Structures are given as C-alpha cells and as structure tokens.
C-alpha cells in the first residue's frame, strides 16, 4: 500500500509508535500488558466523547457542551436512583442517563436547528448553563456511595490475567461500550444514507438544502446523538469510579476535540474518519497518561498536546500546499 504523507492518520500513527518506543526506552516497564490495559481502560470515556465530536465536526458544526451534559446526566441519574431508593440493574441507570443526555442534546438542537444559531455559541452557552444548573439546583456534593446497579457494572470484567511478575491486569466490560459505539457510528457514517447526509451537510450546507436534504432534521439527530453518547460516557465514568462527582469531566472537552482534529477531522466540516479519530484518541490518552514516565512534569501535558495539535494539523496542510504548488 502506498503511504500518503499528506494524511493526518499516517503522521499520528508514526507519532504514536515513536512515543511508545521512546517511553519503553526510558522505562521498560511501559511495554507491558498492565500498561496496555490501563490505557484501554482510560480511553473508554474519552473515546465515546471523541466519536460524538467526530460526528458533529463532520457535519460542519462543533459541540463543546458534551462534558457538561455527561456530568449532568450521570450525576442526576445517580442522585435520582439514590434518593428514590430504586434498586435498578445497571442498564436501568444507563438508560436513564442516556435519556437525560439525549434530552439536553435536543436543547442544543432547538437552538441550532430551530433558531439557526452558530453551533459554537449555542454549545458554549449550554456548556455553562447546564453545568451551572447542575451545581446550583441538582447538587454539588460528591456521591461516594453509588447505587448497587452501577457498582455491579464496575465489577463486570471482560478479561483478566496475571503477568509473570505477579501483576494483575483486567479490562472491564465497559470497554465493549466503546467498541459498540465505534462500530455503530462507523455503520451510521458510512453505510446509512443519514450518515452520508451528515457528510453532505458538512461539505456544503447550501447544496444539501438544494438537493432536498432536510438539514434541520439531520441536525436534530446529530445533537441528540451526541447528547446520548455523552449520557453514556458520563454514566460509565461514574460507574467505573464508583463515585459521582459533579465537578468531573468538564474541562476535558478541548483535549477530546484535539484528539479528533489530530485524527484529520476539519473544523470546517465534511472531513473526518473513525480510524483517524481512534489514532488521535490513542495519542492524547498516551500523552496524558504516560508523559510522567518520560520524566516530564504533568504540568507540561497541555504544552505537549498543544504542540502536537499544531504539528499534526499544520504539517499535512503544509505538505498539501506544497503538493498543490508542485502540481500547479
């Protein structure tokens, strides 16, 4: 296969490999199954967020409210189940959280599709409003004793093992949720007409309208879908941690968007792939979890992520421009 150096995917893949080699050289303990499973576990929540962001970016919009929606959905679900004393199984909690997330996503949709407001402005507004509403009216106390259903979920282990040195490692069933979301969204984007409409709108909203795509309907779907994914990511986060902290998650949004953009999605819409998003996700998760192994203080994390974004998006653009110059 021919390697296309102007693609973000190629570059991000190489950086991921280089980062792994470098970290292994500095600390050989990095190259082990426990590390791998740790990273996989850490990419579940960020990964579900990233897939949602990919769908929005492809459509030419942006959503920064998903972390606030996730925090709201998981905290109010946990609180409701506790206060009502309902002993529902984990999927009951999941369904409630996803429902709340979808509802908040629809609020975004009302402003974006209904009132035709810019997506960044709307979601910046809902980010702040949803978070404020959560902390003021729902609660700001940490719930350390989550309902039994959610606790049970965290104990559902998909895979476990022991290394020769006697270290335990395991992968929770929650990882299957990420796999399902990835597979489902791939199918949505590439195999359904709805997915192609999302790409079409991202390519040219005016053209989409002219050939008879119901742009508003598609937008309602997109923001509801991202809301649903946020609700899912939120409840998984709280279940795995066995703690519902209303201050969690918000603040993650820029690194998630960074992961998706690193993977080749364009903020101007129309472009982005699942593979690229997963590679971008891998890079961001690696950097946020393993930089410390390289002896780099964790305060440098954001500098490194920023530099990677500049490099990862700037270099392909530069090469594409050079290729265009040579051709023309």
């Amino acid at each position, binding site marked *: 296969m021919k390697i296309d150096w102007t693609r973000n995917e190629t570059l991000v893949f190489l950086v991921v490999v280089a980062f792994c080699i470098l970290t292994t050289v500095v600390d050989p303990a990095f190259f082990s199954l426990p590390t791998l499973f740790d990273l996989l576990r850490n990419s579940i929540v960020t990964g579900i967020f990233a897939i949602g962001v990919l769908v929005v970016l492809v459509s030419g919009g942006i959503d920064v409210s998903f972390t606030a929606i996730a925090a709201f959905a998981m905290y109010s679900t946990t609180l409701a189940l506790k206060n009502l004393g309902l002993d529902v199984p984990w999927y009951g909690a999941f369904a409630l959280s996803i429902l709340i997330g979808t509802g908040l996503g629809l609020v975004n949709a009302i402003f974006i599709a209904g009132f035709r407001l810019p997506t960044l402005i709307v979601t910046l507004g809902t980010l702040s409003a949803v978070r404020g509403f959560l902390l003021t009216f729902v609660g700001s106390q940490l719930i350390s004793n989550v309902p039994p259903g959610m606790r049970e979920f965290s104990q559902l282990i998909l895979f476990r093992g022991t290394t020769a040195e006697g270290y335990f490692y395991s992968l929770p069933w929650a990882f299957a949720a990420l796999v399902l979301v990835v597979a489902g969204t791939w199918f949505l984007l590439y195999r359904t007409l709805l997915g192609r409409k999302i*790409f*079409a709108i991202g*390519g040219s909203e005016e053209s989409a309208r002219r050939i008879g795509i119901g742009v508003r309907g598609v937008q309602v779907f997109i923001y509801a879908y991202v809301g649903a994914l946020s609700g899912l990511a939120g409840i998984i986060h709280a279940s795995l941690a066995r703690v519902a902290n209303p201050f969690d998650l918000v603040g993650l949004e820029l690194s998630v968007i960074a992961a998706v953009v690193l993977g080749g999605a364009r903020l101007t819409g129309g472009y982005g792939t699942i593979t690229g998003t997963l590679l971008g996700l891998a890079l961001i998760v690696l950097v946020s979890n393993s930089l410390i192994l390289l002896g780099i203080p964790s305060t440098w994390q954001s500098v490194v992520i920023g530099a990677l974004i500049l490099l990862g998006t700037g270099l392909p653009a530069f090469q594409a421009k050079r290729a265009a110059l040579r051709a023309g």
Partner: protein
Amino acid sequence: MTETPFVRLDAVSKSFAGVQALNGVSFSIAAGQAVCLAGENGSGKSTLIKILAGVEKPDSGHVAINGEIFNALNPRTSVARGIQVIFQDFSLFPNLTVAENIAFSAELASGDKLVKRARARALAQSVLERIAVDIPLDTRVETLAVADKQLVAIARALALDARLVIMDEPTTALTEREVQSLLAIIRRLKAAGVAVLFVSHKLAEIFEVCEKIVVIRNGAVVSDAPAAEFDIDSLAYQMTGRHFTGSVAAPFDAAAQPVLEVDGLGRDGTLHDISFSLRPGEVLGIAGLLGSGRTELAKALFGLLPVDRGTIRLDGRPLALRGPVDAVEAGIGYVPEDRLTEGLFLTQSILRNIAIGRLDAFSRSLGRLDRSGLRAEARDWLGRLKVAAPDPDAPVKSLSGGNQQRVVLARWLAGNPRILILNGPTVGVDIGSKTDIHGIIADLSAEKLGVIVISDDLPELIACCHRILIMKAGRIAQETVSGETSERELTMKLAS
C-alpha cells in the same frame, strides 16, 4: 401547435418586499427543446428559475407540467416531475466522490435507509457514459477542474431522469474549448428528448444551441420568438432597451515613451522570455487558453508571483516587485479574475470598498482618518463610474455583477494609477454592464492610462484593445493588431 408543451408558465407574478420581480410571465418549453432565457442581471431570471425549481412560490399565475397545473411547486414535486436545476455554483459536495455526488439525489429519492454503493456507482457510470464523459468515479470533487465539476453537476441532474435541465450561467467559468464540449452535450440531451433552459449572458452561444429565445426585462417577457429571428444586435437591444455600438479604443500616441517595458521576463515552468511594451493610452489585450500563462503574467506584473529572470521598467525606471505593495506604490493596479474572492470585501459597504485603497491619502496626524473626505471621494467615483447603488452604505454583495466590477475599478482609479491590469473584466456581467465597462476602458485610454486586458472573450479583446498578444505555454506566441484580425482568425491562432 396542439401538442402539450412540457412546461408552460401562465401569467406568473412574484414580488419581494414590494418590488415586482416577475410580472405576468408566460412562455412554454417543449420536450427536447432548447430555450434560452436572456435578460440582464436583475431582470427576474433567477426568480423564474427558483419558481420552476419550487424554491419560490408565485404570488399569482400557475405552472403547468405536462398539462398538470400547479399553483406552486415545491422542490420535491419539481424534481419528481423531471425538472433539474444546475446552479451557477454547481451546488456539489466537494468532500464526496464523483460517484456519490452524481447518485446522491437518486439515493435520496429511492427512500432507502442504507447506502447502496454498487447501485450508486453503476448509476453514476451509466450517466457519465450517456453524456460521453470520462471522470474517475472515486475522485473527490474538490480536486476536479471547474469544467469537470460542471460535468458532474450535469450528470447529477440527469441521474434522476430529468426531462428539463435548467442551466444557470453554465459557461461563465469555462474556456472556449470547454464551452464547445458543453454545447455538444446540450445537443445530445436535446436528441434524447430532454428539454434545456439555458440562461446565459454570452450571446454567441445562445445562437449555437437554442431554438427559441425568451427575453425578459424588468420582470416581463419582452419577446418570445425562434432564435433565427434574432441577431446579436437585436437581442442586445431587447435585453437592455438600448442600442450599442462596438467600442473601438481611440488612437493613442505611438511615439510616446512607453509607460511599461517588460524584457525577458521568466519564471521556471510558467513564463518564458516575455517581452513587450505598453504606451500611455494603449490598451493591450492578452489572449490565451487556460494554463497558457496569461494569469501568471498578470500576477507577475503585480508582484503576486515572483519571477526568476528579466526586468520590468515603469516610465523607464527599473522596478523590483517584492509584492503587491510595491506594485501599488509604483502605480500598477490589478483587477483579479475572481473579483468575489480576490477583489472585494463582500460584506463591507460599497463606500468602504472604494475607500480602502485610499486610506493612506486620507490619513491625518496620529493616524486619524479624514472620514468625510474619504466618503466624498468614494461618492464621487460612484457617480463617475455610474454605479447603480441605491444605498452606498449597503454591502457590496447586494450589487449586481456589473456594478461590483465597477466598484473594483473605482477603487483602483481612485488611487490614480499609471497602469491598470484587468483580468477577465466582464466575466459574469450582463451585456449592458459589459458595454459600460468597455466604455470605461476607452475612457481610461483617453486619460493616458496604460491598460492591459486579459480575457477569454475574443470579440471583447478585438473591440477594446489596440494590440493583442497571444500566449501559449508561457510564451508570447504571436502579436496582432486588433483592426487587422477577426474572431475566427484569433480562435484559429489560439487553437493551433
């Protein structure tokens, strides 16, 4: 005629905010007939297209398709009855492949929820074959040349079993050769029983393909007759209500010291050994096919494209152009080919667009601007160039193509340049404005300005220029004097 026409408009009227855009328009299009809708900008052509496409609803009157009467169409019925519009900007999806673009409407119409890739590809392939065009199906549309994008847009229209294809200004962005292949496709469509409504400013093309010409002016049909009953002059008169005389530039002083001397200009791969001179008051035409280096030459003269070799002298003094700033300082003005993206601040006001070039001259101490002085001068230029602007503070994008071009010209002229380079000065403007712009060029020449006109429109070059340089593969292949050549001769020289 007893046969039911494919489309018939009956007394269609439409007004926007009190302005009567269409006033009792009636005409018909038969199956397999090519009809030209001619009219100046603002005559109501676009509104008419939108009514046929179902985007706008008429206030009164109705549209009949195959005898079935509609008081108002909507986009879905319009498409279902076989009406397809190819908009001027093609309305394609740059990020999707050729196959997807062509098959998208058909996929939408199929009502399927899942993507049927093989079916979409097969459809795209068969439509491209129908118009005898070969474009790789998996190419992304953004990487295609303009002419190919248009072919994709045509193919998309045909993919849905179109009975009437409406083409809005289809030839604006095409070179002469591409126009010919487009006309061939239109003939093929007609032979297959597909009607074509062709909206064009370019008069010569109208006569080549259309059986019937419908002229609208100020929202009303002023004539509806077989094309054979028109000639270029009568058509121009019908469209504008004015008579035109071909403007031939006034003679200039051939013995004067040249204002611009270009000697051995070269740039690797694009320009080779370009030498010519331009005298004050002379209008020099540059003709050449796309890729001949004509635009590169213009950009090099304006400092937009660095050169490797050769010298440029202005009034005898050598000029080192490091960028457009140097060129403007020296008194060279450049009106780009694509005035919308390169020449205007579309959302800014008309006055500001003119004033932007004069900020230096009107800045006072401490960087304050003499705003009233700027406004007065900008207004003065609006009057001198006859810009039809009801409100000088309205954004430039609210103006018609011809008036936009005048605003660009006004900006440069306000800076009192020595040389003005006009790249495609009348692309996309109607005949009335075109003649006015030719008149402006003649005025510039009379004021001893050196003018360089780059154009695809050969009659335009012959009418406006004293001399014409023909460029091929980055070289000046030939030079002709306007009075001694004809369009046919020039076309042959270009193509050979």
